[in-house]
């Protein structure tokens, strides 16, 4: 197989049980969405991991630039006031 006729790459998201989020768990090659879903089922849900699967073409994902990491994410390191730990919760809203 040459690079030009390789199947496109898909990112796979699996939901372990109803109510939880779909979590990214890996990627695979497949010719189209239907095949990608089936392969995701076969590759990533063999050990009772899944109750629902999403797939998305990897080239459809826009990602942040690793080079921007300092600018994007470091400034939040010292902004403790953004965490809600300073607020006293009324007893009636326990377990937040």
């Amino acid at each position: 197989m040459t690079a030009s006729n390789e199947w496109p790459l898909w990112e796979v998201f699996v939901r372990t049980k109803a109510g939880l989020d779909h979590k990214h768990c890996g990627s695979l090659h497949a010719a189209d969405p239907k095949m990608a879903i089936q392969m995701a089922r076969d590759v990533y849900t063999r050990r009772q991991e899944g109750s629902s699967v999403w797939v998305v073409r990897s080239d459809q994902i826009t990602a942040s630039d690793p080079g921007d990491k300092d600018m994007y994410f470091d400034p939040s390191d010292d902004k403790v006031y953004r965490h809600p730990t300073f607020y006293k919760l009324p007893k009636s809203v326990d377990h937040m």
Partner: protein
Amino acid sequence: MQGSVQLRSDPATQYLLRIGDTCLILGQRLGEWCGHAPVIEEDIALTNMALDLIGQARAVLTHAGKAQGFDEDQLAFLRDEPDYLNPTLVELPRGDFAFTMLRNLMVATWLKLLWQRLAASSDAELAAIAGKALKEARYHQQHAADWVVRLGDGTPESRRRSETALAQLWPYAAELFEADAVDDAARASGLGPGAAELQEPWLAEMDQVLAEAALTAPKESSFRSTGRRGIHSEHMGHLLAEMQHLQRAYPGGVW
């Protein structure tokens, strides 16, 4: 060297062995794809299905041997060739990917219809096995059907291979639907359907997929394979030699 076991072959036992051996032998053939499939995702899918089939075989063979004091391993590994009652279709060498997918479609469609009926068997344990196996067979059928359509309606190369596979495999389907005394007894006792009863729905489901794949089933021929009666093709002995040699050489060996 471990000797062979010999089962009393009453009709109910034969009926169960035909089902269990179909799963066992196709599972063995699909296992041969491990490390050889065209892409790694498909490699995993095929071995998943091989293990599904072997799981079904374990359940059915355990059930078939229980009354006579044999366990699943004795039945799977220590019978002689004429005592395996799978249809010849499943013992044919794995062929290329088009051949494997078409055979998977033929067998999965048949097993799905069979499990559906067996879920209402008068034998409660067989009914329970069928209920679980049905879900697996439905997926195997869908997986194979998708590939048969892709390959049949694909490139000139994949189409040529699909047509060749269809010409080779189709004549072996007739055996699946040949009624005999074993089937009659199963029907009478409510154990399961007779072979002929599944032919019409099987053809209907196959026709649908073949039409979508732009393939045409060959005309019916007079050829009849005879695996379900224990008379196998030349390929069966080689398959059994590979499958059995560990248990024969190291009796009772386990993981």
